[in-house]
């Protein structure tokens, strides 16, 4: 086993352990989400542990080199993740925008109501 494999497997093992810790007591939906990451980590462990596997897949897919298969799939995965995260951030910004503007407008109504009730209180007192 090469030095690279040792380092990569150690890092992947640590990453897998962190996911395993999060499994405990997590709701079903979270477990499904974590399983997706667990599957990706397992795939990475297999490719790092047995480089012949990526060459086999590359041959079957007609790509050529095993390393290229890993790079291509990693790029597609990263692109997909990036797109998803950008969409999520955009949704959060939309929610923030709505919340901040509603608070501003409602704050104004609340202030107007307070002013009105203060004035009517004054009139009642007088």
């Amino acid at each position, binding site marked *: 086993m090469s030095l690279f494999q040792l380092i990569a497997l150690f890092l992947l093992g640590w990453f897998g352990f962190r996911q395993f810790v999060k499994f405990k007591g997590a709701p079903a939906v979270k477990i499904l989400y974590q399983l997706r990451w667990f599957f990706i980590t397992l795939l990475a462990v297999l490719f790092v542990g047995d480089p012949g596997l990526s060459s086999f897949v590359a041959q079957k897919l007609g790509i050529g080199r095993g390393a290229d298969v890993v790079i291509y799939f990693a790029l597609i995965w990263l692109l997909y993740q990036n797109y998803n995260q950008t969409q999520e951030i955009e949704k959060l910004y939309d929610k923030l925008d709505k919340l*901040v*503007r509603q*608070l501003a*407008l409602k704050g104004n109504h609340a202030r107007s109501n307070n002013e009105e009730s203060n004035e009517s209180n004054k009139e009642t007192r007088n």
Partner: protein
Amino acid sequence: MVFANILVIIPVYNEQEHVAGVISMLQGAGFVDILAVNDGSSDNTSGVISDVEVQSLNHWVNVGLGAGLRTGFEYAVANGFDYVITFDGDGQMRAEDAVKIFEEAQRGHDFVYGCRDFNIPGVPKVRKFTNLLADLLTAMLSGRYVKDTQSGLRCIKVDLLKKFDLKSRGYSISSELIIQSINHGVIPKPVKIDAIYTKESLKKGQKISNSFRVVKELLG
């Protein structure tokens, strides 16, 4: 002269130095309904606004110019105003120009805006370029070329505003307003105005990154 049923919306972000002057200038010109929308300023803008006789709304966090204007528009619709005038809070505009565009709107134009001349001496080339870029992009999206789409001085009839479905949070609101107006069959009418270029306004407006942000927001 006093202008009734017109709401002047001033979106402000960190404008403690200028906002009071801008408000008193507008009040001096006869505008009675002025709304300052403080978009989460981190300086004393909020304190300055509360010290002057003006309506104000506060965003708890900074969302962007578009969000500030949309809050103001919503307020105008809810309170039954006939027209809104949008006016920058950085002291770059003159109250007489707001009067000028309002008078033009009263002649039957539902959307009038202040069109600046970028060929006067002192305007940086990068600013001309970024404005041209934004104008071209707006033209591509609306199907009609309109000059100086990024001008912050506009007068819009509230009846027209009610038809808009505005989404922009940031600087792209300027282009979005023009696009939606054209889509509703109203070609914005330009009125020539003089822009006052201060050191701060040039610093804020000339960033080329702002143009790219407009492009990104419009396409995104």
